[in-house]
């Protein structure tokens, strides 16, 4: 072995330790850095073709599913059932949804795992307009959403669903909802984390009390307010 070089420095281990320390501490600061990167990369993402755009973090969507297969939408067979504590049970076809009063909004989508997508343009039906058709009874206090992706369910209190920015969306960014975003209809409630924004909704049951949904049974908060819930 040659004699050790007195001028040699242990930069290898220092690099390793610095990167590990920076990465581990990003559990604290990573969210802000990610949003800054999203913002900086936004022009690049816009310049890419549609399929490649999803590779750049500025688009930000991640698709979480719980079943083996993702539900697919057949306009000829799809219906949205509204039942439970209602005066008039409803079975709406996709065309029926489009005839109801439409609402539009631009809002930010927050996932409980830390990522967000800003400036999402939604179009759909406010729940007050949707429920006006079915007329909930006085005992109805919550909406239970049943997804075509079994066994995903979740619920909102009636007053939560009637918030000014909650809706059942059927368009995203000017196009009908894509399959991976819950086509043909999904819940949008921007003040709550994404797991309350049930995708592939095919049934809304009016019930007396909200109940734990898929992720709530695994320990997530039922009232999933952004920044105020799921803090461990």
């Amino acid at each position: 072995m040659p004699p050790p070089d007195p001028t040699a420095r242990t930069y290898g281990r220092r690099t390793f330790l610095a990167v590990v320390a920076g990465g581990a501490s990003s559990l604290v600061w990573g969210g802000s850095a990610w949003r800054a990167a999203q913002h900086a990369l936004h022009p690049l993402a816009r310049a890419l073709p549609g399929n490649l755009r999803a590779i750049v973090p500025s688009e930000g969507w991640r698709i979480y599913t719980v079943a083996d297969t993702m539900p697919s939408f057949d306009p000829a067979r799809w219906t949205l059932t509204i039942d439970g504590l209602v005066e008039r049970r409803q079975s709406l076809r996709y065309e029926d949804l489009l005839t109801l009063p439409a609402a539009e909004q631009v809002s930010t989508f927050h996932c409980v795992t830390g990522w967000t997508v800003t400036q999402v343009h939604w179009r759909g039906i406010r729940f007050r307009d949707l429920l006006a058709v079915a007329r909930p009874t006085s005992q109805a206090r919550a909406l239970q959403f049943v997804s075509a992706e079994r066994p995903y369910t979740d619920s909102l209190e009636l007053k939560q669903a009637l918030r000014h920015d909650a809706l059942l969306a059927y368009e995203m960014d000017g196009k009908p909802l894509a399959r991976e975003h819950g086509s043909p209809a999904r819940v949008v409630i921007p003040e709550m984390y994404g797991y309350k924004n049930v995708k592939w909704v095919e049934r809304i049951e009016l019930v007396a009390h909200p109940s734990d949904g898929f992720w709530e049974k695994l320990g997530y908060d039922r009232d999933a307010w952004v920044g105020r819930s799921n803090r461990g």
Partner: protein
Amino acid sequence: MADRQYVLRFSRTERALHWIHAAAFFLLLASGLALYLPTLVAVVGRRPLVRAVHVDVAIAWVAALIAVMLFGDRHSLRRTLAELDLFDEEDRKMLRGRRFRAARFNAGQKINAALTAAFALLFAFSGSLLWLGERDTRFRFANTVLLHDGLAYFSLVLLVGHLYLAVLHPATRHSLRGMTIGTVGEDWAREHHSRWPALEREAAEPS
């Protein structure tokens, strides 16, 4: 060149570590992208199965690395670790963009090794937190998934550079031979790694 001389650059243990890491990385990258990119998620589907593959490969990767480190040639690993750790004046010349004479590893290869090791540890750390976080709220942190995804982006950049130098770049692609069968041409080594002690020893021995 029938009479070309070869020198051993990587031991079996070092090569095993490299290829276990490489194979696991590609499998984890493929399954990770199928979980991550919306277009692929829609095409591939079967998220529970893909996620199980991702987790199982990760466990096998860690177990295989530990097994090689426990039962392989630990002496060669310790020696390599020491070489990768120390940056001497010639390494610093390379980092400053000046002419340099490399030993068995040049400064770029040493940095690549340090980053790869750090990323591997952080991947294992963040992946474990994601897995545990689904089962116990104490392990749930808002930015864990961002760390895991961010590492994938940085690793991809590192991988592209590594693959270019190892497979395409005319001056360096001969080094792939060292990582596959262990030896590299002595003439190539003298040109690119002239301060490598193995060459100096060889030069000192009578022919």
